[in-house]
């Protein structure tokens, strides 16, 4: 579905939802029960209203999701989009503290990791650390990793990649792994071609 059709469909959904919201606001409150009477079963009207509300909630969630995707497409169109991910596969040799990313000598990201976030990466999580736009052509990406290395000493290393940005989205991955023979962590940048 192209961009124009998506905008039209979202507007139509909004137009369809608004009368339903107005009808809900005008619903009369239920009458009070007579004292001593048994609790009546929920009337069919209320059940239908509940289903309507659930349906509307689902529509709102779907609409929100569509809007988010639309926003991403508008801000980071596929032909200029560059996305950077980070993954960790380390145990003994490196505890990540922060990552700084420079593209063409300009700092684009500086991310500080909490213990919880570093733990999530260790457990196999992959984080989208940066999403931006780049022109077609040759670019250089430099990433600096700061943390605690072997023997709990302060550790800072860098990794560089020169890549060609063509037409279409570009995905790069910062990988931190253990280099067991040397008892050192290894930092590399992988191009998802």
């Amino acid at each position, binding site marked *: 579905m192209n961009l124009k059709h998506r905008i039209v469909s979202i507007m139509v959904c909004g137009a369809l939802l608004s009368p339903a919201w107005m009808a809900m606001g005008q619903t009369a409150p239920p009458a009070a029960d007579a004292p001593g009477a048994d609790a009546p079963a929920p009337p069919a009207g209320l059940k239908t209203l509940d289903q309507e509300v659930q349906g509307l909630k689902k529509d709102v969630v779907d609409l929100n999701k569509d809007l988010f995707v639309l926003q991403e497409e508008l801000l980071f169109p596929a032909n200029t989009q560059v996305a950077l991910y980070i993954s960790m596969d380390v145990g003994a040799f490196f505890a990540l*503290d*922060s990552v700084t990313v420079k593209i063409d000598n300009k700092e684009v990201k500086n*991310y*500080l*990791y*909490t*213990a*919880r*976030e570093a733990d999530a990466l260790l457990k196999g999580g992959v984080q989208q650390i940066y999403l931006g736009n780049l022109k077609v052509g040759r670019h250089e990406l430099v990433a600096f990793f700061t943390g605690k290395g072997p023997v709990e000493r302060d550790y800072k290393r860098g990794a560089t990649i020169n890549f060609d940005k063509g037409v279409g989205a570009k995905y790069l991955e910062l990988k931190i792994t253990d280099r067991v023979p040397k008892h050192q962590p290894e930092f590399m940048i992988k191009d998802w071609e």
Partner: protein
Amino acid sequence: MRNTLLVGGLVLSAALAASSPAAAPTMVGKEAPDFALRGLDGRNLRLSEFRGQVVLVNFWSRSDGDSRQQMPALDRINITYQRAGLVVLGVSVDDDLRRSKEFAAAMGVSYPILFDTGTKIGRDYLLQKMPMTILVDRSGIVRYSAVGFKSGGERVYLDQIRELLRE
């Protein structure tokens, strides 16, 4: 002549409108901008990881007298309400990191002190005067904001804190 007077009057009224004190911008009602900073103990803390708890964020400066006076009061609040789910975070905005750390260590408060040497967080939170104290509810919305501090002024925070903890 009449046109000159009319134009002059318009210019004067525009100047008066510009000089009159506008309401200070505030973050109340808006989502608290997320940040991650390094603490005095070396740990990194991220504001959004406290979602679900009531958070008091106090922006302070070592060189500001009100900030120094406020810290013991916040310490007492932290000790009292921590078990009820309140999180107190102190954020130093001093440029001199070394002296700020020395001062924070000397104060010996029980809540985390974080250090911000950049300008982004200050811009995000519309920092204009120190100290500034904000209260963030469990959904991450700024519900209260106060600038400055006078002795006994923490009573106002207590009312707000109790209300948010009850939610």
